[in-house]
């Protein structure tokens, strides 16, 4: 079950199996089919058991849905809660107090910090430095891993304060929050965030100095774009090839479906083209909206172009977004004034509701139909990894041939490192299926 290797097939064909991807969230594996040195097919296989969330939310109230969809992912529960709550408020026409909006952005910043610090230090950095895990990395570079853990802790502290706990927070409600927050509570975050900003800036220097494998390609990228802020809770869906959609209209351009050679649900444009979401896409499409501190850090690296073309540079993109999220969180903390009430009162009723936000690992889209009494009648939930799967497979098709000549453990390592670059969250991908792969014959 845990073996890796490159068994040679017959008649010039090669089947590459990387069984049991590690340092990703959830369970998956990769199968490549190679003929005469060219990759014919690259299939990410997912063995994560289906949990049927779209049906589990039926018959529930919008507030119950906010609790339930968090459980799709323990790493990014806030992304699911934010996407759902914005969708319901859009569908039901509920106005939100500006300070509630600021608190939600602060909460989302907390999750970005926690998730990105986890990925950069615990999941991805060991690849670049030749270790099997951050625990082993810590034996030789303890200070670096401790700094990463402290950065992660600052993100968790925000989510714990606003949400009650770091994973599956409890306070997000339609119309606002379940309670108000005193100014002194919010300003208690000032000191840990100021320390985190120093770590985040040092992280940029650390990861910008890592040497990535040589790989260039032009991917089609999609992200939210907002006129005045780096995309998180709000924005229009834009792409590197000129798309410009309201965040409610994902389904007008994209659709999930099963492709001929597998039975996996993948999101693509309706004309079949894959696309990439995530930190690289956001920086490519919205770098001009970065917090000035993060914009300066990006400029110092000189890597904006490479972030677009080399997926291994996503670790730099995450570090820049760490600076952005910490700096923005600090600004929100400084400017915070308690809202008059915790939540805007609202009346349940029928509607269709939809929204897109930016999870740490990329854009996420929800759509709901609410019945006459205001209960959920149906749901569509499209996580980032479902959207990235086709683009990851396309990148693997380009990249894999250049490492297949290496010894098998090295080739496996390089390919796994590439897959980790996208921060795939397989637990999130509610409708990833196990793939059926044809024999090479």
């Amino acid at each position, binding site marked *: *079950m*845990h073996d890796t290797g490159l068994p040679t097939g017959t008649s010039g064909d090669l089947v590459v199996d990387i069984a*049991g*991807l*590690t*340092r*990703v969230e959830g*369970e998956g594996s990769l199968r490549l089919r190679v003929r005469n040195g060219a990759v014919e097919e690259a299939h990410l296989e997912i*063995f*994560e*058991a*289906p*949990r*049927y969330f*779209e*049906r*589990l939310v*039926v*018959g*529930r109230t919008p507030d119950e849905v906010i609790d*339930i969809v968090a*459980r*799709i*992912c*323990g*790493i990014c*529960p806030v992304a699911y809660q934010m996407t759902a709550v914005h969708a319901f408020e859009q569908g039901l026409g509920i106005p939100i107090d500006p300070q509630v909006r600021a608190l939600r952005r602060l909460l989302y910043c907390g999750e970005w910090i926690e998730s990105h610090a*986890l990925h950069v230090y615990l*999941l991805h950095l*060991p690849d670049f430095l030749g270790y099997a*895990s*951050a*625990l*082993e990395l*810590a034996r030789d570079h303890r200070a670096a891993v*401790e700094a990463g*853990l402290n950065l*992660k*802790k600052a993100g*968790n502290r925000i989510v714990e304060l606003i949400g*009650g*706990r770091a*994973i*599956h927070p*409890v*306070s997000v409600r339609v119309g606002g929050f*379940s*309670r108000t927050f005193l100014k002194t509570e919010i300003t208690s975050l000032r000191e840990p965030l100021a320390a985190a900003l120093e770590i985040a800036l040092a992280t940029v220097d650390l990861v910008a100095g890592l040497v990535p494998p040589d790989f260039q390609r032009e991917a089609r990228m999609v992200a939210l774009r907002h006129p005045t802020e780096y995309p998180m809770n709000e924005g229009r869906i834009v792409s590197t090839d000129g798309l410009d959609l309201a965040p409610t209209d994902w389904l007008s351009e994209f*659709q*999930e479906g*099963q492709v001929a050679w597998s*039975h996996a*649900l993948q999101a693509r444009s309706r004309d079949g083209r894959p696309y990439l979401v995530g930190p690289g896409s956001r920086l490519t499409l919205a770098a001009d909206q970065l917090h000035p501190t993060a914009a300066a850090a990006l400029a110092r690296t000189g890597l904006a172009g490479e972030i677009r073309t080399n997926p291994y540079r996503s670790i730099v993109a995450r570090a820049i977004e760490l600076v952005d999220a910490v700096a923005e969180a600090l600004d929100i903390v400084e400017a915070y004034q308690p809202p008059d009430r*915790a939540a805007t009162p609202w009346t349940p009723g029928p509607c*269709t509701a939809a929204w897109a936000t930016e999870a740490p690992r990329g854009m996420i889209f929800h759509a709901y139909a609410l019945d006459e009494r205001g*209960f959920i009648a*149906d749901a569509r939930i499209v996580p980032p990894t479902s959207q990235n799967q086709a683009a990851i497979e396309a990148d693997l098709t380009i990249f894999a041939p250049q490492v297949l000549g290496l010894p098998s453990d090295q080739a496996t390592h390089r390919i796994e490192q590439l897959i980790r670059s996208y921060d795939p969250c397989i*637990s999130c991908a509610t409708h990833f*299926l196990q793939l*059926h792969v044809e024999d090479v014959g």
Partner: protein
Amino acid sequence: MTSQPWVAPARHSPRAATPRRPRIGVVKFASCDGCQLTLLDLEDELLAIAERVDVVEFAEATSRRSAGPFDVLFVEGSISTEEQAEEIARLRAVSTRLITIGACATAGGIQAIRNWFDHDAIRSAVYPQSEFVESLAMARPVADFVAVDGELRGCPISPAQLREFLIALVTGRRPQLPDEAVCLECKRRGVVCVAVAKGLPCLGPVTRTGCGAICPAYGRGCYGCFGPREAANTASLAAWFSDDRSAHEVARLFSGFTAWSGPFRTQIDAHGGPPGPGEPKLERPDA
């Protein structure tokens, strides 16, 4: 909880001259990864813990893999496929202590709501070619399949309880995990009762403590993440809920992340079952 020692004796004893570090595994089945993430969220203790135990299997955190044996195996997630049922049996055979972590592993999790409904109907509503989706008719807790030596409740588990468990593990004592109601923790925290003062439905009186009574502290009723406490009088609470709520609403209140646990399930059944899966209304994914 078992009365057996938490770490196998003699050669594992922390008092031995050169104690062997316990071999720890962390595995997952159908779940969100949040409970195993709680281990990585022990930022202040993580590196010290890693020095005291040998983490030999933890796919989310390390590329080193092990199929066993394990002195202690932490298991996240419900058993939802035939393959998982076979794998948990194999893991049980190579683990001295098997500890379930979180609501999915201990009670089936939110996905156990589907246990009340026709599996094929749910499957075909989510997947256009449902014949390729493998899952068992029910999502069930680990203890339905193999013997379990201990459990950490919660959705997610509590970092404090995990810390206590790990300290107990490396020092060779039994962990102190209280079985009282959320209400007691709520009182100690000085929170005004949301059920009495605001009339909010709250599962605190029947739910095991451990979370820190965060929901009442954040102005809402407990929704039962940690599952029923021992001798939970859910019938009495359901009767109180019924004073001003329909049976449908009462069933919904118990239909959370530990719905499949006995005392909650009884009330869901007595009040007409959980919210139903319905028929698709929105455009479906392409076949």
